[in-house]
């Protein structure tokens, strides 16, 4: 019997899956079982492009699920896009899960039909930056990399010939490499907003490296686990108090680091200089619209206020598109960083947006993407 709130340690019963998965293969086995037993019709899995990049694909083939090993540090993607109108299970980092829940709030997907297996995340890395970092900092040929891990504040790369090299994340980030900027000030490291919160933090002793810590967050989480146990795909046991404490400690360290970095990343800009600052940051915008296209909380579709009332013929001092988006997202931005990732002019759009969203959300004691029943503050307009 599995109950909501359970803290468990488990692993895949299939030796192959257990070995290949980053930590015991529990997530892969749970997803495979969900598909196999008809709990869902489709599963979103990450298709391996290279060691540094994976793209989400939708599958109804159990073997394809088993063959996939999601790269833990791949950048976030707009998963809800693939869940629309489907009965689906998906692995998700905390921000991926936030995005899915925000889409559910906007009626784009049915959360009852969407199973989210959350993955702990200490931060993700951009593939090209990672390759450059490997050469510059690790002296490793990117082609030789076979695995990566984050442990005790260090980023570890494993190579073909079995060697490992670890460098402190602080050091990497000081040199301009390491995690994406939005990951540095993120404070949601354990996906407590998902149905299951899985990860290797708190997996200790003999099981270290070959089991997954799993917290059951809600009834859907119970279903996912019980289904996988019934299918004989996983085995679980209660986590020890020590394991639970260690997991909490790892999380605390990460969250504190995020809070500290937030102050560094967002230095105060005096009232009189802010307008100039924003104008300069956005002046190189080429109006491609990628930041909206990729935005995982936007549910407006192609014809929306930000695009329909924006025209290139208007030579405004600030673009209507950005003004509308800055306002529109101030209650809902989850700072996943995807807009910065895709900006062809390298505008740090997530950082700009966060300067509006963070104070706005804190003032209202609202965090987007945590609970589908939390109404976005701007929606008060409709509800009153």
């Amino acid at each position, binding site marked *: 019997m599995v109950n909501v709130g359970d803290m468990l340690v488990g692993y895949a019963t299939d030796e192959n899956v257990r070995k290949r998965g980053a930590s015991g293969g529990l997530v892969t086995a749970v997803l495979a079982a969900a598909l196999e037993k008809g709990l869902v019709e489709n599963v979103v899995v990450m298709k391996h492009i290279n060691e540094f990049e994976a793209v989400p694909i939708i599958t109804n083939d159990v073997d394809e699920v088993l063959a996939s090993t999601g790269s833990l540090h791949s950048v976030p993607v707009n998963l809800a896009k693939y869940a629309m109108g489907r009965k689906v299970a998906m692995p998700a980092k905390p921000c991926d899960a936030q995005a899915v829940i925000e889409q559910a709030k906007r009626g784009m997907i049915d959360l009852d039909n969407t199973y989210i297996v959350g993955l702990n995340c200490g931060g993700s890395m951009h593939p090209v930056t990672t390759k450059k970092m490997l050469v510059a900092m690790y002296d490793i040929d990117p082609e030789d990399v076979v695995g990566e891990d984050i442990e005790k504040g260090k980023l570890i790369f494993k190579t073909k010939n079995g060697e490992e090299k670890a460098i402190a994340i602080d050091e990497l980030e000081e040199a301009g490499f390491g995690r994406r900027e939005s990951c540095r000030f993120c404070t949601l490291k354990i996906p407590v907003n998902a149905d299951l919160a899985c990860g290797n933090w708190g997996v200790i002793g003999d099981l270290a490296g070959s089991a997954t810590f799993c917290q059951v967050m809600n009834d859907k989480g119970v279903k996912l686990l019980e289904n996988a146990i019934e299918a004989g795909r996983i085995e679980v046991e209660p986590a020890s108090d020590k394991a639970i404490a260690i997991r909490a400690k790892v999380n605390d360290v990460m969250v504190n680091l995020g809070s500290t970095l937030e102050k560094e990343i967002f230095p105060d800009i005096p009232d009189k200089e802010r307008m100039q600052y924003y104008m300069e940051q956005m002046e190189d915008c080429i109006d491609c619209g*990628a930041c909206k296209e990729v935005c995982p909380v936007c549910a407006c579709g192609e014809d929306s206020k930000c695009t329909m009332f924006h025209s290139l013929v208007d030579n405004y001092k600030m673009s209507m598109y950005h003004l509308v988006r800055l306002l529109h997202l101030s209650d809902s931005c989850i700072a996943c960083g995807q807009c910065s990732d895709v900006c062809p002019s*390298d505008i740090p759009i997530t950082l700009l947006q966060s300067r509006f969203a963070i104070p706005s959300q804190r003032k209202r004691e609202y965090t987007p993407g945590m609970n589908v029943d939390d109404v976005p503050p701007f929606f008060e307009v409709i509800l009153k």
Partner: protein
Amino acid sequence: MIGNVYQTVCPGCNMGCGLYIREDEEGALLVDFMKSSPANLGKLCRFGMKLPHHYSKATSMVDGKESSVEDAIKAASDRLKGANVTMLGVGNTTNEESLAFSNIADAMGTVVNTGMGVYSELPTECHPTVGVGITLDDIESAKRIALFVDPYVQYPLLVRRILAAKKNGASVVSVGWKDLHLADENRYIDPDLYESELGLDSESVIIADVHPNTDPGWVKRMLNLALKTQAKILFMKPFVNATGVDLLCKGTGQKGIPEIMDGINEGSIKTLVILDSDPVELMPNSDVAAETLKKLDNLIVITSRDSPVNKMASIVIATEPLCAKAGSFMNVEGLLLNNSGEDTAGIDAMSALSQNLGGAAMDYQELHNTVLESIVKKFTKPKYKELACEVLDIGPFEEKKGNLIYLYNPFMWFDQSDDNDFVMVNMNTVNKLGLSKGGMIALTSDAGTVNMRYRVEDMPDGLILTAKKLPVATGWTTVVSTEAV
């Protein structure tokens, strides 16, 4: 897997921007960002973002009627046998298809024209310098950058490279048509002063462009500037495989599209075979080009997409969409980029055509190997001597007259609609003509009149810029009279 994910390259220009094209169960296309792509890190411009609109599938036709590919190939073979054929392929498709096309040309005793007429005006030792540019990373480490293009409008993915260079301490001088935000200086000076005024040296980079309607004198001037200042030079190009197709068709006549159009008008060209190249889209004036093409006895189109020329073609041989093709592209910096697609319908069609015309059969792997052998090798750029060139004449600066200039960009090359239904003028023009806010400016040339909305930019007097093809244009620059409406 449900649906398909193609790793491919954006056909908007020769930058080589990688991207994913997703195809769902119903065949709907979606763009996704290929973050590990070296040229662009997955980032895309307006055109790239709108790419699904670009993939309108072609249908095989014979004399205006839908037909099977086989019948189209057969009909094409019948009409091409013994004919005096002109062939055009600008590089909107893979290296492998371009090579197959050029093999057909061999079989017929003719050559493939790439439409870049400027090459025939340049001594061959200059071709490699124009053909393959410096790497895009080189831009970021330049100390000074001279821009002769508008990166925001024309080659948007250059913007981040130039901004990165600025972060690394570079200064940027723009010698374009209008003020650019990212330039430290915007200069509008006499071309004779470039060498002395632009402050270029061996640590500098010149960014210019070359396309089917380029003024050859201008390219020579750029080459001279690079030669005299020792600056590195990068010529941007408009087609996804413009660099590859140039290397594959080396030594051919390199007839320009305007020359081909002249040939049709004079009656010396009666049969035209084109591979993914639509003169209606590529010529400055679509209507005039369409009229010209009607004079052909035979117009045979091999293409992956639906475009205006298909409607006037005698025969259309439809091939698979670009993203689905097996094959490779070469971008402006000489980087070979591979498609993940495995479809070879286009090559198979050309192989059949070749055999019908007495040429050899071709298969993909063989063509791919030839591509690897013949164009992927260390590029050598021989020295060239200073070239004589005319000063570019951009017309009179008369009262109420202006020079309409095309700011070529991917939307223009594919004649696709965008939010670009306006021209750019300076404040002086607005005041002189008494243009009202929200009003229009009328542009009149020999080709007619058009009323356009306008946007105010900082730029020299007498210029009118457009990022959209206009029916009043007669070339990439056109003298027009102006009036407030």
